[in-house]
C-alpha cells in the first residue's frame, strides 16, 4: 500500500491550517487507496501528537533538540530523512512561509515534482493533478505532477479538516541524523500582527489600500475593526508605501484570507489582491470610483470618499453597540 505524508510544524499546533492540510492529505490518500501519515517536526507538543493521531494512520514525531526551532537547512534535511523511508507517493505541506520555502527543495531531494498554493488535488489514471490559480488570479490551471512523490503545498484553509479516523494512529518517535549546518542560521524573529488571531483565521477583515493616502487612516480602520471584533489587512500598494507592515498584505503574494466579511477601503480590486480574499463569504467596499473593479466582487458597497465614510461609520457602529 502506498503512502501519503503530511508534513507539519508542531510549534503551530494542530490549528485550522494543519487540519486543512491533514484533510487534503486524507482525501488524496483515499483517492489513491493509500495510508496517510503525519510527520511532525518541532518542539515536543503532546496535544498536537494526540490530535494528529486521531486523524492519521500514524504520526511520526521528530522533536529532537536540533529541530526545536525552525532552521531552513536543518529542517529540510530532517524532512527528507523522515519522508524517505515511507517511500511516499505524495507529500503535502501547508502554505506558510516555512513550508513554501522547503517544499520545492524537498521535492528535489526526494526526486519528485512540486507545485504550490494548490486549491484541489485529484488523481486521474493514477497521476496526481493539482489545481491552482495563475496569472495573478485571472486564470486557473490544472497541472499534472510527473515525478513521484508529488510534493504539494496547499492553500490549507481551502480544505475541510480531516475527519477523525476509525482508529487512532500510532505515535512513533523518530530522529533524523542531523549534522551541524551553520551556512544559514536564523538569529532573530519578530511578530507584528495587527491583532490577536492570525489574519487567515479572522472572522472579519477591514483592508486599506493606496487610496488611503498615508499611514494615519490605518489607525481609524483598526478602531473600526476592533469595534467589530475584526482585524486589519492591506493591499500591496499600501504595504509598499510603508503605511503598514508587509505581513498585513493580502493577495496572491500576501495572506490568503476567507473571513465572513471583508471590507475593502480605497482598494481598487486588482486581480492579485482578489486572489487573496475571493473566498470571503461577503465582500463589501468603500471606494470613490463607481467603476473600481472591487465592486465586481462585492455584495454591497458605497461610492464615497473614505474620509467622509469612516468617521461616520465609527459613530454609527458605536451607537449600535
Amino acid at each position, binding site marked *: 500500500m502506498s503512502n501519503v505524508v503530511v508534513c507539519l510544524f508542531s510549534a503551530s499546533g494542530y490549528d485550522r491550517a494543519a487540519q486543512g492540510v491533514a484533510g487534503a492529505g486524507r482525501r488524496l490518500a483515499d483517492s489513491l487507496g493509500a495510508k496517510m501519515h503525519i510527520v511532525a517536526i518541532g518542539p515536543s507538543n503532546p496535544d498536537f501528537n494526540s490530535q494528529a493521531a486521531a486523524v492519521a494512520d500514524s504520526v511520526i514525531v521528530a522533536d529532537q533538540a536540533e529541530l526545536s526551532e525552525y532552521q*531552513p*537547512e536543518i529542517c529540510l534535511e530532517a524532512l527528507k530523512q523522515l519522508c524517505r523511508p515511507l517511500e511516499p507517493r505524495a507529500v503535502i505541506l501547508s502554505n506558510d*512561509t516555512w513550508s*513554501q*520555502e522547503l*517544499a*520545492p*527543495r524537498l521535492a*528535489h*531531494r526526494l526526486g519528485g*515534482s*512540486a507545485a*504550490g498554493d494548490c486549491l484541489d488535488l485529484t488523481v486521474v489514471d493514477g497521476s496526481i493533478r493539482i489545481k491552482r*490559480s*495563475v*496569472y495573478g488570479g*485571472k*486564470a*486557473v*490551471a*490544472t497541472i*499534472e*505532477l*510527473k515525478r513521484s512523490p508529488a510534493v504539494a503545498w496547499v492553500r490549507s484553509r481551502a480544505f475541510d479538516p480531516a475527519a477523525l479516523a476509525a482508529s487512532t494512529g500510532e505515535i512513533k518517535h523518530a530522529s533524523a541524523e542531523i549534522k551541524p*549546518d551553520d551556512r*544559514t*542560521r*536564523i*538569529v532573530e*524573529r*519578530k511578530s507584528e*500582527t495587527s491583532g490577536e488571531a*492570525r489574519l487567515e483565521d479572522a*472572522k472579519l477583515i477591514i483592508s486599506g489600500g493606496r487610496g488611503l493616502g498615508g499611514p494615519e487612516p490605518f489607525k481609524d480602520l483598526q478602531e473600526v475593526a476592533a469595534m*467589530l471584533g*475584526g482585524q486589519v489587512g492591506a493591499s*500591496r500598494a499600501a*504595504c*509598499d508605501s510603508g503605511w503598514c507592515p*508587509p*505581513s498585513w498584505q493580502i493577495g*496572491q*503574494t500576501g495572506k490568503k484570507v476567507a473571513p465572513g*466579511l471583508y471590507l475593502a477601503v480605497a482598494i481598487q480590486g486588482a486581480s*492579485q489582491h482578489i486572489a487573496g480574499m475571493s473566498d470571503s463569504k461577503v465582500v*463589501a*467596499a*468603500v471606494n470613490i470610483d*463607481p467603476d473600481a473593479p472591487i465592486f*465586481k*466582487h*462585492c455584495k*454591497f458597497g*458605497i*461610492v464615497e470618499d473614505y474620509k467622509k465614510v469612516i468617521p*461616520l*461609520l465609527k459613530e*454609527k*457602529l458605536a451607537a*449600535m453597540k
Partner: protein
Amino acid sequence: MNIIVCLKQILDPEIPVRDFRVDSDKKEATRGSANMVTNIFCENALETALQLREKTGGKITALIFGSVESAEDSLRKALAMKADQAMMVINDGHPHPDPLAVAQVLAAAIRKTGEFDLVMVGRESGDWGVGQTGGLIAEELGIPCVSFVDQIESGADGLIVKRQTDTGWEKAGARLPLVVTVTNNEFNVPRIPKTRDIMMSSRQPITKLTLDEIGVNAGEVRAGGSYYQVVDLSIPVKDVNCEFVSGDTLDEKVGNLAKRIMDIAQAL
C-alpha cells in the same frame, strides 16, 4: 562579491481582467496588445542587489532565460538600472518550460559565469506564480537558500538577510554562496533608470548563450521539461451583483452601511 540576479520576462500582469484571454490549446495567456515586462519581484531583487553593492561593492550580473526577440529588453533595463553585465540563455523551445527545467538552465548558466557568491531571484513570477525557481536553483547548485528576503546587509562572516514571515520577520546570518528569493517591501521598489543610462545601456554588450552551450539536457528543456505539465488553463467565471447602499444623505447611506456590517458581524 559576485551577485547574479535572475530575471524573468512576463506578460504585463497589470492588464485588466476584461482584456485577459487564454489560449486553451497552447495553455497560455494570449498576448494581445499587452506589453512584456520584467517580473516585479525580479526587479525588487535587482534593486536589493544594487543597494547591497552600494554598501559592499561587487559586481552584478543580470541573467535571463527567455525568448531572443523580447528578453533583451529586460536585460537592457537591468543595465540601465546599473547592473554591471548582462547574460541571456536563449529559449528557442517551449515558451513556459517547467520549474525544474528553468532552474537547471539558470544553474548551468550561473556556473558558466565563473565565481558567484549570491544568487538572487524573485519570490515568484506575476504570470505563473510558481515560486520554486530559487529553491530549485539552490538544490541544483548544492547551496543553501533563504526565501522571502526583503533586506540584505553585510555581516560578520557573510550576510545578514531579513525575510518576511507569516506574522512578521526573521533575520538570518548566512555564509556565501547563497541563494535568496526576494519579495517586495517599501525599500526595494525598483528605481527608475535615468534617460542617459537607458541610452548607454543600448550600447552595452550582452552575452548570449544557447541551450546547447551551457550543458543541460537541451532537448528536454525545449520540450518543456519532465517535472510537470499543464493540462488545463481556463478563466473562472464569477458574477456578483453589487448593491450600492441607498440613502438620500451621506448620513443615511453610512447608517445603512453600518447596519449591514453590524448584522453580519453579529452573526459571525
